[in-house]
């Protein structure tokens, strides 16, 4: 199954350049809902797969972009390591490339870091049909611009990811999730207060009048922190956080539009109607309502944040938070120097490029 398809992928890029057609980069299709509607001839990276270097002692793993995320997590799990940004799969086909291209992170994100924080290096095909390698496989590396990290969350618009090197971390020896009943206002206050203390927090969310706090670390450390925090231990904690990560939790079911608001964690509750799910200790808030985008965005901006339409509705308009004109122009120039003919995922991130 493991195979190097970089030559075939490169040939497809050269063909697209010659024929002046655009390419829609795909992997396992698990995140095709994310972002603006894809356009162009589908080019699958899924066959370009396999773990290339796996160095437990160096805390690094390098794999081809088409490698299933589940395969990578299994390899890491076998030696008590993990991808600390807890990437959501959103489907059985999730690949490493799609995970990095989307740049999504799960419940551990505020405490351990985001997808982009763990990217050490990447090999890509740019829009001139050149294979380029940025970064490397070591923890500290400041040679050249950090183009590898730039690929994270770029939705393939700057190039096709061929392989990616990630920093990995040991799995915590012990985890416990504590719950308490409270209002959203109380939950925010508790989360804000606890975040200022040296506690081994690794997730904090609020849904349906319940606050969930996860602690990770050595058993004695977790127990000591548990005493300080209080609350009821959650028996099926792994299943719960998996539901939050994968959006299989009840909150995420149904057809109402799902908005993602990224806010300063201590930002007050927003006065917008609809159902709320507060994650990331307050920094990521999910909202289900059919209000016009402008209203939601303006409210998020007022509190120093931004908002994007995550699921539902037509993904043909403005999905991600609009960029100010100067920044948009800079994005276009950057897109242009990686992909001058605009062949990769046109319009997937913003309509303008």
């Amino acid at each position: 199954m493991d195979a190097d398809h970089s030559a075939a992928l490169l040939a497809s890029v050269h063909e697209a350049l010659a024929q002046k057609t655009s390419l829609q980069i795909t992997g396992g299709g698990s995140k095709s809902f994310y972002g603006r509607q894809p356009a162009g001839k589908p080019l699958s990276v899924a066959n370009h797969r396999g773990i290339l270097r796996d160095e437990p002692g160096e805390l690094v793993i390098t794999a081809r972009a088409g490698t299933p995320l589940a395969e990578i997590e299994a390899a890491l799990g076998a030696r008590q390591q993990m991808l600390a940004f807890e990437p959501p799969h959103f489907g059985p086909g999730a690949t490493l490339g799609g995970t990095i291209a989307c740049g999504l992170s799960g419940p551990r994100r505020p405490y351990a870091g985001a997808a982009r924080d763990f990217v050490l290096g990447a090999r890509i095909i740019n829009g001139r049909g050149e294979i380029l390698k940025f970064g490397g496989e070591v923890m500290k590396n400041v040679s050249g611009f950090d183009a590898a990290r730039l690929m994270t969350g770029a939705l393939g618009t700057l190039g096709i990811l061929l392989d990616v090197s990630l920093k990995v971390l040991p799995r915590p020896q012990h985890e416990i999730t504590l719950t308490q009943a409270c209002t959203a206002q109380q939950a925010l206050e508790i989360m804000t207060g606890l975040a200022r203390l040296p506690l081994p927090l690794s997730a904090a969310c609020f849904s349906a009048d319940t606050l969930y706090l996860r602690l990770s670390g050595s058993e004695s450390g977790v127990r000591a922190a548990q005493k300080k925090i209080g609350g009821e231990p959650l028996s099926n904690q792994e299943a719960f956080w998996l539901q939050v990560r994968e959006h299989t939790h009840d909150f995420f079911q149904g057809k109402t539009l799902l908005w993602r608001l990224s806010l300063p964690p201590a930002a007050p509750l927003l006065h917008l109607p609809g159902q709320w799910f507060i994650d990331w200790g307050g920094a990521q808030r999910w909202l289900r309502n059919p209000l016009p985008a402008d209203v939601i965005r303006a409210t998020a901006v007022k509190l120093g944040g931004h908002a994007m339409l995550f699921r539902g509705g037509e993904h043909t308009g403005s999905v991600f938070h609009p960029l100010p004109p100067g920044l948009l122009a800079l994005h276009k120039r950057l897109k242009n120097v990686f992909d001058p003919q605009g062949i990769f995922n046109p319009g997937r991130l913003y309509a303008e490029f």
Partner: protein
Amino acid sequence: MPESAPIPLSHELNALVMALRRILPQEAVLAGAEEMRPYECDGLTAYRKLPGVVCLPDNTRQVQEILRLCTQMQVPVVVRGAGTGLSGGALPLSHGVLVSLARFTRILEIDPDNRTARVECGVRNLAISEAAAPYGLYYAPDPSSQIACTIGGNVAENAGGVHCLKYGLTVHNVLGVKVLTMDGELMELGGHTLDAPGYDLLALMHGSEGLLSVIVEVTVKLLPKPERAQVVLAAFDSVAKAGAAVTEIIGAGIIPSGMEMMDNLALLAAEDYAHAGYPVDAAALLLCELDGVNEEVSELIFQVRELLLKTGAHEVRTTRDEAERLKFWAGRKSAFPAVGRLAPDYYCMDGTIPRKRLPEVLTRIAELSQQYSLRVANVFHAGDGNLHPLILYDANQPGELKRAEEFGAKILELCLEVGGTITGEHGVGVEKLNQMCAQFTPTELAQFHEIKYAFDPKGLLNPGKAVPTLQRCAEHGAMHVHHGNLPFPELERF
């Protein structure tokens, strides 16, 4: 060598100085050789050059005006913070403007509930932690120069420190920056949230060495001060054993907040300088710091002690109190100046290697030391594989500087050969331009130039640093160039 004669004011330079004086207060424009002398180099003192003119703006609007003027007059700009950089990134251009942002020292906001600090770019690294301390918070990255270095420079270099393995580099601890592009446009990248829409330009600014934009304001993430931190010191009779101990600790699933190694020459120098109480008979010394919840630290200290003894440490000591912990670190943090007393000059290298290759790399460095007849002391951020060999030389001995530089270049090639990188945290600057030719292909370097072009189409921001021209690489002989066309020909406008 320093230029002794005053710079001849060419017609154009004169016009530039006059134009600058129209937009800045009198005392904010320096054009005399003696008053510009402090700006002729950064921490890489072997390279010196007097700038055409020095500007000392104290607000963003003034910087905007300087940049607009320079864009209009096609004059290159080099921006500098505290000048503690070790790769010559702030080396001035004799025909350019040197902009010092040392006056941008205001701490704008400490927000304990959101755990952020918003500060001007010239605020010193340590000053942020000092301002956050009343709230029980601190800023994690701590480069050795943290007393002096500025946060703007930290972002530009993506500075590291001794706590990177657990707490990350600068890029992992910054939420937002305000930058000016070369044409004077103010842009906010990131802000007070954990992510921002669009490309991760915030990440791209980190380590961009002043080539893409001018950083004027930074919002950093603050962390709660750990409940307890404790250091275990271990002495080994060989570097290989110390290296194996590091692998064992990480293999056991422990992420120390700091893990530092020194070889005998380095630890002797540090002991002599800081009287940290190091065992002077050790071939290698390991400092392993654990922090976190009180109970967890107790557990980990026990585990680490066991692992160290198992891997052959002949002496293991755990700090008894905060004073002893700080003393152990004082020794390590003074290693550079301490080694500096062993010879008239030293040259600090900064490669990163996969940890497991440490013993062979140190053996090869010892062989090179013989070959070049220059002593070398090794200081190592063992947790993340970042090696700092300090080459001792005497610049007054004919040929020694050149030999030291050749020796250094060999070390960096060795780092590349074992799968590492030519710079872990000090940056490329002017120092490692030739090694960039070895680390990257011409197409990769061309892509870097293109990235710069997207931000700075006229190539006026810190030109000639960080990314070598393809021409230079062709001349250096490290790679073959078919088309020696230069995206940024060296700018000689005056």
